[in-house]
């Protein structure tokens, strides 16, 4: 079997985000970038399935500018076999990303597609779902446990009410929760070897799909600053404040 795993380059989760003065977006110049954390879980799970002997090949794909290749290199260093870089210098919405991934799927014909449940930059949480719909494949989102069977997968999902267990037939789309696994470190010898693994190049706008953005971003603003809290002396004061000042009870 074959897995396609999609990885995205985002601002590192430790970096304090700065909004541009003109409200057109956030600063990304000279900011440390990393792989979207749940995408690391997606890669890790693929590698685990390969190590179990059930999966033959893992292909890692990213969409973005030249530097986005770093995320593919990282996936190659932890165990993916080859990479695909779909080049685009401009932002593409989840719908466009899903259409591009569909093209890649048609070419690669994987049995499973693993993605992060959402990206920490735009928090859209749409790409996996849209991709499954367009392929007409079953989808299992927010996965925290994956068990691969002969022609299906049993998946435990993180949902609001608790955990839900579903079974999906292959081929299928799986989006991964942070609880799915503990991503391994890329070791130095494997990073060295990953430099020699192939990365195929494609160009987004040459794929024959409409990737025009549909949403117009008007303004990006910083969230309002949190006010300092207060200390109350006792429960009675707390209840009184909640009732009379905050008016929440």
């Amino acid at each position, binding site marked *: 079997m074959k897995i396609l795993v999609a990885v995205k380059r985002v601002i590192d989760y430790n970096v304090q985000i700065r909004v541009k003065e003109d409200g057109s977006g956030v600063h990304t110049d000279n900011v440390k970038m990393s792989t979207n954390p749940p995408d690391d879980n997606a890669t890790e799970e693929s590698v685990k399935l390969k190590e179990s002997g059930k999966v033959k090949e893992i292909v890692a794909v990213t969409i973005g500018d030249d530097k986005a290749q770093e995320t593919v290199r990282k996936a190659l260093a932890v165990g993916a076999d080859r990479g695909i870089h779909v080049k685009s210098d401009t932002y593409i919405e989840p719908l466009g990303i899903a259409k591009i991934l569909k093209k890649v799927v048609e070419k690669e014909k994987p049995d499973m597609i693993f993605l992060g449940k959402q990206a920490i930059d735009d928090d859209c949480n749409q790409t996996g779902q849209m991709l499954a719909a367009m392929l007409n494949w079953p989808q299992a989102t927010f996965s925290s446990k994956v068990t691969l069977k002969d022609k299906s997968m049993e998946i435990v999902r993180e949902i609001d009410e608790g955990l839900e267990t579903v079974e999906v037939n292959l081929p299928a789309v799986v989006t991964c929760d942070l609880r799915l696994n503990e991503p391994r470190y890329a070791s130095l010898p494997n990073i*060295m070897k990953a430099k020699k693994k192939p990365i195929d190049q494609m160009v987004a706008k040459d794929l024959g799909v409409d990737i025009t953005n549909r949403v117009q971003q008007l303004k990006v603003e910083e969230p309002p600053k949190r006010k300092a809290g207060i200390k109350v002396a006792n429960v009675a004061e707390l209840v009184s404040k909640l009732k009379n000042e905050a008016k929440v009870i």
Partner: protein
Amino acid sequence: MAREATEYDVVIVGAGPAGLSTAIKLKQLDPKLNVCILEKGSEVGAHILSGNVLETRALDELLPKWREQGAPIKTKVSKEKFLFLGKNSSLSWPTWLLPAVQKNHNNYIVSLANLCRWLAEQAEKLGVEIFPGFPASEVLYNEDGSIKGVATLDMGLDKDGNKKDGYQEGMELHAKVTIFSEGCRGHLGKELIKKFNLDEGKNPQQYGIGLKEIWEVSDEQHQEGLVMHTAGWPLDSKTYGGSFIYHAEKKQIYIGYVIGLDYQNPHLSPFDEFQRFKTHKAIRKMLEGGKRISFGARALIEGGLQSLPKMYMPGALLVGCDAGTLNMPKIKGTHTAMKSGMIAAETIIEHFKNKRTLSYYEELFKKSWVYQELYAARNVKPSFSWGLLLGIIFTGIDQILFRGKLPFTLKHKHADHEALKPSAQMPKIDYPKPDGKLIFDKTSSVYLTGTNHTDNQPVHLKLKDPNLPVSYTLNKYDEPAQRYCPVGVYEIQQEKFVINSQNCIHCKTCDIKEPSQNITWVAPEGGGGPKYGNM
């Protein structure tokens, strides 16, 4: 089982200006060499912090077409100011009365982190392999005692040293020659200086701590190209230090404060001196209403030529400030670090081609302009041990009249950790309270550095005697670690010494200033530490 190992011609530890220049020069001289650089930061530049006003002399020699190649060197110095500050006053010193070494009219205001990122791109184009996120944590030796290479740290250990899920063993990198370019107080460099007695016959090394913030200010407050320095307030005349304020591109001001780590008062807090400094009326007007966007700190070398150790040993060279090539009166170390790396590369080529020993490095170094610069600069820093006024008068005579050619060399008498006086004998200092606008606390500052270390890993700040902080240092010096650490890693809580090592920004001040040398800084798991942007 033996660790995995790989062979290179040259392994370089640290992707700062010295290490990157060594790599670039090596590949220029012999493209066939296999050269790799290990870098502990999560990317090149993440651990780089500097003023920085760049003198391009070394870069002009290394990459003469840097302008066409898009180097991030844009803001030429257009105006200079030097102020002596009193508590409520400021006296502008005429720039024509400044020694030549302190004039900057052909220099550029740059972000050294960005310059290093660019240098890394140039190095990679030449075929240098760079591995960020991998600290060299151990020096490897051959049977004859010469240096065989380095090993990277094991990753995925918990705080007790047990293997976690995803554990990865470190790797050995063997090299014909290993270059140590870790910057000021590199932890492997420190080990080598001791092991090979490289500082024999030299004065004790002198250090400073530099703190820096980047501010975004209004058009009216900004004067692109302005370079300003101050001396005096808030430091007393016995404490060596001063500020820098550089008006960089994009309406940013790089503002910082450097304090010699030979200060005597254990109550002094370099972080709070810097915060207090910004409240001076001549300074606050440049910042008020603006926004602080970055913070960081790093120790730097101040010892100069008297303290410069021997820079070669069997199988390895020390370059840049891992040895200590910073020019103190010039307040610049980038060009000298780069040049020392370039000379190291020339030495290695001679070593490979003509079997010359690595001691040839010293010969080339002494013939270079770096040596001339450091020679002329050698008496400035020690003269300030007589106090600010005498230091200035002497420096005027030494630098303006004699241009550094006085026929004697002043000595550094003490190591920095010996300088503290007992806390009971020294005055307490009342620092202003943080207002969150101009004056900040350590917590909000460390937050801006993007610092993170995987929480469950061995503590990388090692105590030789874990009881000493409470049993001795607290009584005698009021545990100065609480104050000299710029990000509050060390705390005394309920008579216990607490180390918040996940906040460490790798400045190395504790390793230098701890009065009993009880703290040793070692490399934590790769990729940890600050994530500086354009510092």
